[in-house]
């Protein structure tokens, strides 16, 4: 029973954190949707950790809690890969910007010869 209280409290705190970040516009919308969905999945599971027991039985996992652990781990892995991908894209974009800035500065200095 006490475990359920713990998971429920944490689920509520998590959802509150996501909501607060969204409210302050600290998260881009594309991420916001993802995390809202995560929050909405975590909340009922926090109150009723046994909710996934039947699904766990269907795929031969001993308990619903293990299944949650496994799925959660998988989910985090995918999120990490996604963030690496985003970082690579951002680096490619800043690279292009850096090159363009250098080009523009050189063209400017060519227009007005050095004093």
């Amino acid at each position: 029973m006490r475990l359920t209280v713990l998971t429920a409290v944490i689920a509520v705190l998590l959802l509150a954190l996501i909501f607060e970040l969204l409210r302050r516009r600290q998260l881009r919308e594309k991420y916001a949707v993802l995390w809202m969905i995560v929050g909405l999945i975590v909340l009922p599971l926090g109150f009723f950790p046994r909710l996934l027991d039947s699904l766990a039985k269907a795929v031969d996992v001993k308990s619903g809690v293990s299944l949650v652990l496994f799925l959660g781990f998988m989910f985090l892995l995918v999120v990490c890969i996604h963030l690496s991908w985003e970082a690579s894209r951002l680096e490619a974009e800043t690279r292009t910007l850096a090159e363009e800035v250098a080009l523009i500065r050189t063209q400017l200095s060519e227009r007005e010869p050095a004093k």
Partner: protein
Amino acid sequence: MINGKRVLIIVPAWNEAGSIRDVVQEIRGELPGTDVLVVDDGSDDDTSAIARQAGAIVTRLPYNLGVGGAMRLGYKYARDKGYDAAVQVDADGQHDPRYVPKLIDGLDEASLVIGARFAGEGDYHVRGPRRWSMIMLAFVLSRMAGCALTDTTSGFRACDRALIEFFARWYPVEYLGDTVEVLIRVIRLGHRVSQIPVAMRQRFAGVPSKSPIKALIYLGRAFLVLMLALSRR
């Protein structure tokens, strides 16, 4: 003008204050009538100022991108200013500008001409894993290109107008991407690649790395880069 072409010499330089003056002055002395563009890749030292004093056009990246980034910037400049050919020359003095006219002449037959060691001229030798990587790269790329390419990682290369325009849009910044991956892509696009034997000199400043572990890591990375590049269509 070399062989009727407007030629831009692109010199990517990162913290090369010790050698950049000699390199620029030598190029300007040996190749009058060509322009020298030094791309300062976010140096902390006086590379830009010294290069400008020596008579080069200088463009400066706000932070260090690596050779690939510096070269794409150089090709963008060459594209915007309408050069017919661009030659990459390293800032450490390894590349002898007297070979540049030969490279440019090679552009009559090919779109990309590499100044290559191990092709008969000079006495440059490597051993161990570094040598294995070079043999592996040379073997695969020579077969793809349909002609002998003995020095695929050489940064001493000339390209024509078509490739200037292509490189201004696409030039990988990853390790070995600027040499090996570029070659694979260019060959796959149907451009002709050839090589001219050159002798490389001692660097004017700085020392080459001799660590065997680094050489082994280099072999691994070269293999990875090669496999990845080959898997891209």
